[in-house]
Structures are given as structure tokens and as C-alpha cells.
């Protein structure tokens, strides 16, 4: 499997883009939650590519469904 890798781009204005790759399912969100909080938590944009939902991970899938139902 692809090794986990995080690409971080910081603009001169202090805008940060974090790109997580090679982490199973939605656990990639947990991985960066602390970092996002320490950077002030002002998320302006969040995007998952399709592959993030492809891994059969029932627990994560359940959370996703509940969110959709709410």
C-alpha cells in the first residue's frame, strides 16, 4: 500500500492547504484534526477525492450515512 504522505502548502498570506494521501478512509481527517485546531481551525474549504470513500471501512461508512440522514 502507498506510504502515508502529507503535503502542506503555506502561502505568504498564511493560508494553509493540507493534502493527505495514502491514509485509509476517513481516518485521514483524524490525522490532521489537531494540526487544523492549532492553526486556528478556520477551515475555508474541505474536499475529499472519491478514493477516500472507496475503502470498505464499515464504521466510517456508517458515520457518513448518519451525517447524510441528519
Amino acid at each position, binding site marked *: 500500500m502507498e506510504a502515508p504522505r*502529507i503535503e*502542506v*502548502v*503555506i502561502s505568504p498570506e498564511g*493560508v494553509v492547504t493540507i493534502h493527505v494521501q495514502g491514509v485509509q478512509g476517513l481516518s485521514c481527517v483524524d490525522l490532521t484534526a489537531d494540526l*487544523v485546531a492549532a492553526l486556528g*481551525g478556520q477551515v475555508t474549504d474541505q474536499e475529499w477525492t472519491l478514493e477516500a470513500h472507496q475503502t470498505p471501512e464499515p464504521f466510517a461508512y456508517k458515520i457518513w450515512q448518519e451525517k447524510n440522514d441528519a
Partner: protein
Amino acid sequence: MSHYTTLRTKITDESALVQALNDMGFVPEHVECHAEPQHLVGYHGDQRPETAHVIIRRQHVGSASNDLGFVRGEDGSYQAIISEYDQRTGYGSAWLQRLQQRYAYHTTLAHLARQGFALAEERTEAGTVHMILSRRA
């Protein structure tokens, strides 16, 4: 699997703020950190009503400068207190943005190191910092 997050930096961590100030040319001995906010001092040596948790005293800023301060608000984020004079003489919004960039850099390294990630690549292009961090699968 892939996931993107974009955010605007707010300063919330004292030690990363101090590291960022070090990058901006202030040696660690010149950056005061206080548990309780302390009064800033103006260029005449006058005590100002403004208080701050992180302070660089005026003698380390410039000959006619006032103290630079960062006060921690109730939401945990730091607000810069910089006099109009100092904003005009190099400590304006461009300086603050560079400070935020350095803050984001140190915060990223520290937090991702705790998750087992190490810096594999770093480059700066047109003022934008690109970092790649990796760990074993």
C-alpha cells in the same frame, strides 16, 4: 486516498509563535512570555493601557519603537498589538502575514512529528512554502 483541507492561519500556540518570532529576527532572550498579561511600554518609557502575554520590548524593535505585544483572547487565539508608528516602519500587515506563515510552518512540523511524520522535502517558491512529510505505511 486523498483529502484536502484549506484554512486561514490563526495563532493559538505560544511556543510556535515564539519560534516564528525567532525566524523574524528576534532572538529567544528578547521574546517575553507571561502567564498573566503585562503592560506594554511606549517609546517615551510610558506604561500603556494595553497588555499582552507575549512581548518584545521596544529597545529590541527600533530606536523610536513601542513594545510589540500578542495578547491571548478568550477563544485562545493571539491578537497582535502594534502601534501605528511600528506598523508604518516594517511591522504592518505584510510582516504579520510572514509571521503567520512561519507560525504555520512550525506548527505543522511539531504536530505531524507527533503523528510520526518527518519532513521529506521543503522548498520555497515565490514566497510560498511547500512541505512534504512522510512516514512508513
